[in-house]
């Protein structure tokens, strides 16, 4: 390994090596508003303060891009490149324990990105996934609770990849098969309407491929929801409970009150099963957990069979509508507060508490996996009342590194004291004290 990485290489196993992770150096070239920027960072809390539109969020977006190869603000890469430039570059030095790695990513809109690790080009940028793991808190998080199902599926899938980078490949394969199969169905449906004969001879083989990747994704999501459930419940109690000591989270559960919040995963794959022997719960399409969270191999085979059966059952409907109706891309993560669906029923404050709880649970889960995420808090304090601000500040303190942006100093709880930078018109200056 030393032969190939002459610099002190970070452990390449990308999974659970001991040691806290933080960035010591971030440099940007032609990224968003920054022609060139070099920033030295330290462990602990760093706050970037500046008015809106000065470039604070761009800094966190760049760090997030290194971790996920995507932006939390835009779906395409073009807006990330400074106007007039052909490409953008993000470079960071990542330290894990006593090892360091230099990660470089060139973002070229419309083309494949180029990635280097310790100056060695990587075959695929995807191979960077897992070196830097982050959890981002942003105003957009409210959509996790109030938005469409796609927001919650993306939340689960992003977390899956952060925990197990290999699954990025499964997701990409699933997506590719899904698009091919859906095109086949759509073309056939159009041919039928046009009075021509539709060609569905290859549908069986596409079903087999879809079930193969879909079952793997489903098994992974099932296990993830199980792992998240207790953590979300705890985090919700911690964020939502009033500060009075008589109503601490422990006393709530001790008093035997109803669980404040609940997660349910509803799968289109299991919707048509007459009995739920596969998942061990009758008359419900949700995945309660143990069987799926258990041995992935055996359960994956059962899920694959279930998915093939459901595809067969809904085939006439799929052919008629020209859409793929069965699979993880149509599943739903349902969130409940006090027994009612959070989407539509929860108040603004409750929605925020739940959104924060989902993110805090991700943070805790990744820490328990020893993935040691860096926390990014983008303008999130401004959205919260004083009580939730304080609880959030308290709960993120254990992180090795926290990067915070805020429009005004006063938004950030004093407990989060640390390094301060002022961001004014693309200039980032360290402020003493």
């Amino acid at each position, binding site marked *: *390994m030393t032969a*190939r990485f002459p610099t002190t290489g970070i452990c390449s196993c990308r999974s659970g090596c001991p040691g806290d992770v933080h960035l010591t150096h971030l440099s940007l070239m032609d990224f968003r508003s920054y022609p060139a920027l070099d920033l030295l960072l330290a462990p602990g809390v760093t706050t970037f303060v500046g008015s809106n539109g000065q470039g604070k969020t761009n800094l966190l977006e760049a760090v997030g891009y290194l971790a996920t190869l995507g932006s939390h603000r835009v779906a395409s890469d073009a807006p990330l490149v400074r106007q007039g430039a052909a490409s953008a570059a993000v470079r960071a030095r990542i330290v894990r324990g006593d090892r360091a790695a230099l990660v470089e990513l060139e973002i070229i809109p419309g083309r494949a990105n180029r990635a280097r690790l310790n100056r060695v080009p990587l075959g695929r940028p995807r191979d960077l996934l897992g070196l830097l793991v982050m959890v981002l808190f942003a105003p957009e998080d409210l959509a996790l609770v109030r938005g469409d199902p796609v927001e919650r599926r993306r939340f689960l899938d992003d977390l899956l990849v952060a925990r197990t980078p290999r699954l990025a*490949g499964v997701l990409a*394969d699933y997506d590719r098969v899904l698009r091919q199969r859906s*095109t086949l169905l759509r073309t056939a449906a159009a041919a039928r309407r046009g009075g021509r004969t539709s*060609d569905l*001879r*290859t549908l069986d083989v596409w079903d087999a491929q879809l079930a193969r990747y879909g079952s793997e994704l489903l098994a992974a999501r099932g296990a993830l929801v199980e792992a998240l459930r207790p953590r979300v419940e705890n985090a919700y109690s911690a964020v939502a409970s009033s500060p009075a000591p008589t109503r601490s989270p422990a006393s709530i559960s001790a008093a035997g009150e109803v669980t404040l919040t609940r997660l349910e995963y509803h799968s289109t794959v299991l919707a048509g099963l007459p009995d739920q022997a596969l998942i061990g719960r009758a008359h419900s399409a949700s995945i309660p957990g143990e069987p799926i969270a258990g041995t992935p191999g055996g359960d994956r085979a059962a899920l694959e069979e279930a998915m093939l059966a459901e595809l067969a059952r809904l085939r006439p409907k799929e052919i008629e509508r020209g859409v793929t109706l069965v699979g993880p891309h149509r599943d739903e993560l349902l969130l409940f507060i006090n027994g009612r669906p959070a989407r539509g029923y929860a108040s603004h404050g409750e929605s925020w508490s739940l959104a924060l709880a989902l993110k805090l649970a991700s943070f805790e889960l990744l820490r328990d996996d020893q993935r040691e995420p860096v926390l990014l808090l983008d303008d999130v304090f401004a959205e919260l009342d004083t009580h939730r601000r304080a609880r959030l500040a308290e709960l993120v303190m254990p992180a090795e590194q926290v990067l915070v942006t805020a429009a005004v100093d006063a938004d950030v709880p004093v407990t989060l004291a640390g390094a301060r930078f002022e961001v004014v018109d693309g200039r980032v200056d360290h402020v003493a004290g």
Partner: protein
Amino acid sequence: MYEGIVQDLIDELGRLPGIGPKSAQRIAFHLLSADPADVRRLAATLNEIKDKVRFCRLCFNVAQAELCRICSDQRRDPEQICVVEESKDVIAIERTREFRGRYHVLGGAINPIGGIGPDDLHIRELIARLADGTVTELILATDPNTEGEVTASYLARQIAPMGVKVTRLASGLPMGGDLEWADEVTLGRAFEGRRVVA
């Protein structure tokens, strides 16, 4: 923009796969300054390929006659057919000198987005080649990607009832590589396709 014919040349070259506008420009100016005899030879070759190059009547590999070099070679084993997507895959397998059977070039892979279904590939002709019972093994060597896998599965399902042995190329670890550097998909496939050695 260059004048008239120079720009035409750049545009034509830029239409070729793997050649962007800058490479097209570089090649165009190379041709302008090159020896006229060389350029005329290139032009003559380009003219000839559309007239002279044909596809083998049996296997659809590129050929200069009705049958390609491999199909007309009596020493090749008629019992094995290796199914590939493109002619260039034939060349790649020939380089290994491992395979002594014959080929069948499908002309692509099943790809609904690209508008390619089974009838757009030389599948009917492949099935016809199996009819007389000479072929005992069909080796599926389509690309190890989504479309290649689907094409292989489709062929396997079509041909299995005919009593011909159908095999698929193993996919796994490259020789001379380190296990620790293999990507997870490759390593996973290699696990799936592991063999008993003792």
